[in-house]
C-alpha cells in the first residue's frame, strides 16, 4: 500500500548490512538485506547454529495508561487482562467485521500499578495499525511509536548459548513467550524469547544508537551469522507461520486463518472484541475456507497466486505463500482451500502459469518447532 512517491528509508544498521555483504532490496518501505552469502546457506545455518536478523522495520509500540488491558481487549481476541507481567502473547488486531488488520506480539511490561504493554507489529502495516489503534482506543490510553529503537532477532539452536555469554541470567530467566530487560553499556535492552523461524531464539530491542554495537557483539561469536529476509521467509514457511499481507489480510478472519488459538478461552465465552459475533459463530459452524499447508509433487514450487482447482477445473482456493524448503528439499506452501479439502492427506490440483501440479494437504509446521518451554 506504500505510495509510489514515498522514498525508501534506511534502517539504523544499513551501513552494517552493506559492510557484511548484504544485498539490499526495498521492503516495507526500507532498504533491507535480502541475503548475504545465499538464502539456502543462511537458512540451514539458522536451523543448525544461530542467525542474526535485523527486523527494525517492524513497528515497536508502547501502550500505557489506566485500563489499557481492558481497552486492548476490545480490538484483540486474546486474554490481555490475564497476561502476567513478563509474558508475551501472539494476537491479532481485528476490524469490526472480524478481519485481520495485522498480527502482532504483545508483552505485558507493567511496573507495579502502572499498566504498560509493548507491542511489535508488522513493518508494512505499522502506520495503518497506529492509525487504527489511536482512532479506536480511548483517550486514557497513550500510544507511543518507539521509532528510536532497533529490533534484532537471534534465532537457532545455539542462540541460547550466545545470549547467555553476553547477557548472563537472561536465558535462565526466560522460557518461550516470556520477556525481560537488562542494562547494557548504559542503555536498556528488551528481550523476548520468541521469533519467526520455529527455532528457539530471542528478539532484542535496543536504542538505534547502540544497535550496531549490539550486532557486532553478536556476530563476533562464531556461532552467529547475519541472515537476510530471503531465509527469514523460507524459515517461517517451514515453521507454518503466516505472513501478513500474503497469508492474512483484512478479508481473513482468525478462524479462516486457522489461528483459533489466538482467541483465548475466556474471550470465546465472553466475546467483546471487534468482529466477535461473526468470529465466534464461524468457530461453531466452521469456516467456508481455511488456511492449510501443502507439499507439491516434484521439485517446482507453486507460489503466491497459484490456484487450487477441483476435479472439474473450478477454482476452490488460492496459494498465498509457496517456495522451496531448504530443510526438506521439496516445494512447500500454504493457501486457502474449501473446508472440505482441508484435511491433511487430501490431494489437491494446483495451477500456475497454465501448468498443473499435484499437491497434498500437509500438517504444519513442516519442520517441527523447537521452542524452549519449561517443564512442569
Amino acid at each position, binding site marked *: 500500500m506504500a505510495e509510489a512517491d514515498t522514498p525508501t528509508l534506511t534502517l539504523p544498521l544499513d551501513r552494517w548490512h552493506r559492510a557484511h555483504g548484504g544485498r539490499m532490496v526495498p521492503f516495507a518501505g526500507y532498504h533491507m538485506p*535480502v*541475503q548475504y552469502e*545465499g*538464502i*539456502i*546457506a543462511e537458512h540451514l545455518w539458522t536451523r543448525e547454529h544461530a542467525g542474526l536478523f535485523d527486523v527494525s522495520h517492524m513497528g515497536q509500540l508502547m501502550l500505557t495508561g489506566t485500563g489499557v488491558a481492558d481497552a486492548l481487549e476490545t480490538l484483540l481476541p486474546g486474554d490481555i487482562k490475564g497476561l502476567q507481567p513478563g509474558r508475551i502473547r501472539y494476537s491479532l488486531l481485528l476490524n469490526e467485521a472480524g478481519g485481520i488488520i495485522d498480527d502482532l506480539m504483545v508483552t505485558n511490561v507493567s511496573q507495579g500499578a502502572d499498566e504498560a504493554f509493548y507491542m511489535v507489529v508488522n513493518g508494512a502495516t505499522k502506520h495503518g495499525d497506529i492509525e487504527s489503534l489511536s482512532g479506536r482506543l480511548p483517550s486514557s490510553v497513550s500510544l507511543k511509536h518507539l521509532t528510536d529503537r532497533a529490533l534484532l532477532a537471534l534465532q537457532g539452536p545455539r542462540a541460547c548459548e550466545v545470549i547467555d555469554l553476553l547477557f548472563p541470567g537472561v536465558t535462565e530467566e526466560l522460557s518461550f513467550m516470556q520477556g525481560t530487560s537488562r542494562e547494557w553499556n548504559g542503555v536498556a535492552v528488551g528481550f523476548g524469547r520468541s521469533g519467526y523461524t520455529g527455532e528457539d531464539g530471542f528478539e532484542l530491542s535496543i536504542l538505534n544508537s547502540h544497535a550496531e554495537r549490539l550486532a557486532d557483539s553478536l556476530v563476533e561469536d562464531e556461532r552467529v551469522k547475519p541472515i537476510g529476509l*530471503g531465509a527469514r521467509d*523460507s524459515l517461517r514457511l517451514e515453521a507454518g507461520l503466516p505472513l501478513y499481507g500474503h497469508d492474512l489480510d483484512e478479508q481473513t478472519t482468525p478462524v479462516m486463518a486457522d489461528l483459533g488459538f489466538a482467541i483465548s478461552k475466556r474471550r470465546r465465552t465472553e466475546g467483546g472484541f471487534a468482529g466477535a459475533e461473526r468470529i465466534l459463530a464461524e468457530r461453531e459452524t466452521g469456516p467456508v475456507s481455511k488456511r492449510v499447508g501443502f507439499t507439491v509433487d516434484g*521439485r*517446482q*514450487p507453486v*507460489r503466491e497466486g497459484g490456484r487450487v482447482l477441483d476435479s472439474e477445473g473450478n477454482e476452490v482456493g488460492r496459494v498465498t505463500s509457496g*517456495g*522451496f524448503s*531448504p530443510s526438506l528439499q521439496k*516445494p512447500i506452501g500454504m493457501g486457502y482451500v474449501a473446508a472440505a479439502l482441508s484435511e491433511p492427506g487430501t490431494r489437491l490440483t494446483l495451477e500456475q*502459469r497454465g501448468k498443473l501440479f499435484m499437491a497434498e494437504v500437509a500438517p504444519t509446521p513442516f519442520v517441527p518447532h523447537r521452542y524452549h518451554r519449561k517443564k512442569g
Partner: protein
Amino acid sequence: MSLYFTKEHEWIRVEGDTATVGISEHAQHALGDIVFAEAPAPGRQLKKGEEAAVVESVKAASDVYSPVSGEVVENNQAIADEPALINTDPEGEGWFFKLRLSNQAEVEGLMDESSYREWSSKL
C-alpha cells in the same frame, strides 16, 4: 566457435549450425540459489525470443528465452537433477539446451562477450 549473449542474460555458443544455450554468470548471481530448472524437450521448435525454459530460485521463477530460432536437439538432464549446477557453472556444465539453428543471420544481432560483460557489469 563463437559466444554471444542477449540482454535477457542468456548465452549462446554457436558451432556450425548448432548452438548451446544457458544463462550467464551475471544471471545466476542475480537469481541466487537455483532450486528448479526445466529445459525444452528435443524436437520442440523455438522462435527467437520465445520462452524456452524455466528457472526458479528460492525467491522467484524466471523464464529463459531462446536467443535464436531453431529446433531443440538435446536438453541437459544434469540441471534437472541438480539445479545448483547452474549456480556453480552457469556458462559450462549448467547449460540448458542445444538447438539446430534455422536462421544463421539471427546470431548477428546478439552481443559479443566483451560487450556483454561490459554492459552487464554496469547493471
